[in-house]
């Protein structure tokens, strides 16, 4: 009874203290950074950085022949709006339509974000708060996996999925039996999970290990098991770190083309694959790309704006408290 009483309250207390410290630091740096010069510089930089995107947006509403023959800035002299590029893009079919590929992207991205977070959270907790033999060595091994470029793992991973592993005549893993271009989404979920885990474990470990020792000890004294500590203290406190990694992983998987073309096929292609195909084999319809790009960034924008308040906080938390 007492144990359950203490956890949430102390957890909340820590959260409150963190927030207070953060807002104090924020106000401090706000005072130091907000001068007229800095504000003007920030606005100028923001405008300059937005110009190409703005040009792309304008282009996406211009007539195909105009796009082919003149720059987007001439639009202001001769405005001639059309949504034809958007309808053409949505009607574009290449084994599947752009709409279907958008759904495919969601089907790929959501599990490919949730699975690594679930696995990495457990691993990060174990690395931070469970004592076992060879912990540091194992953590260094996981950490150093980050330097392995995923491109070198493509062929072995593909071979693992299709042929399995056999050691000394004994089939350790029989393979997924998905030969041909008829694969399901399973392979790409697993592939993305594998490529994401080293960074996920590292980021979450840094955050979780920085939680105050006192709460953990208090919980242990009150008789909480690892499971209880994990679910009632670590999970709620690690929310900002989870959210920031979720955004990173979501954007990475959403924008991924290489892993998707290797591990999916035909009916399962994500939207990035359709974008590269939009212009056709000989680049005949490249003017559709601007409209396609804006359709493709809808989902990342929604995710970013709904989770962005966690983003900066979580990243800083993970990065500076090593």
């Amino acid at each position, binding site marked *: 009874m007492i144990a359950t009483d203490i956890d949430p309250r102390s957890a909340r207390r820590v959260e409150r203290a963190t927030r207070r410290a953060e807002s104090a630091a924020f106000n401090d740096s706000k005072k130091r950074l907000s001068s007229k010069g800095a504000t003007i510089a920030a606005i100028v930089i923001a405008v300059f950085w937005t110009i190409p995107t703005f040009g792309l947006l304008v282009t996406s509403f211009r007539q195909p022949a105009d796009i*082919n023959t003149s720059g987007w800035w001439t639009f202001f002299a001769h405005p001639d709006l059309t949504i034809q590029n958007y309808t053409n893009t949505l009607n574009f079919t290449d084994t599947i339509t752009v709409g279907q590929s958008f759904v495919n992207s969601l089907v790929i991205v959501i599990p490919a974000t949730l699975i690594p977070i679930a696995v990495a959270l457990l691993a990060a907790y174990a690395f931070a708060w469970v004592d076992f033999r060879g912990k540091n060595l194992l953590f260094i091994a996981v950490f150093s996996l980050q330097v392995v470029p995923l491109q070198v793992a493509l062929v072995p991973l593909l071979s693992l999925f299709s042929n399995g592993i056999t050691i000394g005549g004994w089939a350790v893993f029989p393979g997924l039996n998905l030969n041909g271009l008829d694969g399901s989404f399973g392979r790409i979920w697993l592939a993305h999970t594998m490529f994401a885990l080293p960074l996920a474990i590292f980021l979450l470990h840094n955050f979780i290990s920085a939680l105050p020792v006192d709460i953990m000890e208090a919980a242990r004294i009150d008789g909480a098991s690892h499971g209880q500590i994990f679910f009632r203290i670590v999970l709620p406190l690690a929310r900002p770190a989870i959210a920031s990694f979720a955004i990173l992983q979501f954007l990475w998987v959403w924008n991924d083309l290489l892993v998707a073309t290797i591990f999916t096929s035909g009916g399962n292609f994500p939207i990035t694959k359709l974008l*590269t195909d939009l212009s056709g084999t000989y680049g005949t319809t490249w003017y559709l790309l601007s409209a396609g790009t804006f359709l493709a960034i809808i989902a990342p924008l929604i995710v970013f704006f709904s989770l962005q308040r966690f983003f900066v906080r979580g990243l800083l938390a993970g990065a500076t408290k090593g």
Partner: protein
Amino acid sequence: MTAQRVFSPSARRRTLAALAVTAVGTIALAGCTTANPGSSSGTGTTGQQTVTIYGPDTGTEATELNASWAAWGKANNITIKYTGDGNFTSNIATKIQGSDLPNIGMFPQPGLLSAAISTGKVTTVSAATEASVKKNFSTDWQGYVTSGGKMYGTPLDANVKGYIWYTPADFKKWGVDVPKTYADLVSDLGKIQSTTGAAPFCAGFNSGTASGWPGADFLAEVVLSSAGPSTYDSWVKGKTKFTDASIDKAFTLLGQILQNPKYVNAGFGNVASINSTAFADVAAKVADGSCAMTNQATFLEANFSTTKTKGGAIPKVGPTGDVWAFALPSVKAGSNAVVGGGDFAAAFDSKAATQKVMTYLSSAAWANSLITVQNGSFISANKGVDASNEKDPLLQSAIKTLQDPNTTFRFGADDAMPTVVENAFWKGIVDWTNGMPQAQAEAEIQAAWANAS
């Protein structure tokens, strides 16, 4: 009571968290086990079989391919699932190494096909397909799918490179005739330049990682017509070096146009702007009249549909239209050698359905179905093709060129060379356009042969 109140939200949270973790785990496991053996090829329960084809054509070209075999597939209870991939040439190597193979691969380059054959994963064609290929294709084309005396695939579509696009009305205005020889072409350019005072020729080499290929194609066309087919063949095989006098002469001939600041780059800028111009962008400049001539394959025709003439209309392509093309005149008069390209199908297994599709793809029936696809851009070198089925005048003339027994057809040299050499070739062309001395560019490309095979 107090304890109860504190306990309940946390308990709810714990259940939720546990549920979330379990759900994620289940999804992960489900992902592993959703393999559906019934959907893989050759095991249809109702007699419906699936054959997967993996190839480089995407977008409209992919739609055309699907339309070309749809009716046959329905009649024969075979579903042909086509997957197009713009990065086919690099991804097929990964897929072969990882044993993740389609039933049939569509190779855009003979060099790539022979590399695939050397891995031992490509199966030889059935006797029926072999007979069909021998009946329908010339020995030039049979050679591309044959290795060590065995036949491994069938030619599919074809294209003809080396067309000079121009505006017939402007030619009439300037008093210029369609040139008969390469020297005439160069003197015509001079004539136009002195009349208009502007550069008459435009070119674009920019094509992402493949930048330089339009120049490599142009050079290959000049080599074939100036040095002849036998030198061309030995050049493609690496026996005649890039530094050889015959290839050097072709560079010099090409330089008369592409390195002359008076002749290029119409509508874009100086000689170096050729590298920054996207290969298909030249269509817009030919259409609006700011560029008098450009060299590109038949496919450029499709690009004119989104350009504007000086008057603001969409240009008509045809002998009497706004834009038309003539074959690149040969260096020696009377030679009729053309450079082109094409795709080849090769099977990775010997299942009955796969082999049946292979036989169909090698037949005249498929080739005729391919060229009659509405608004289609494909042609074929298949001898059984009826050229009168092709409504487009340009493609019809290209088919006639391919079928003419006097035509010497050669594959684009870059595509037929090993991939490392091909990439060096493209890069060498880009460097040459950027101002690298000719001899140095030739030596740079030649050096890549040391890394081939």
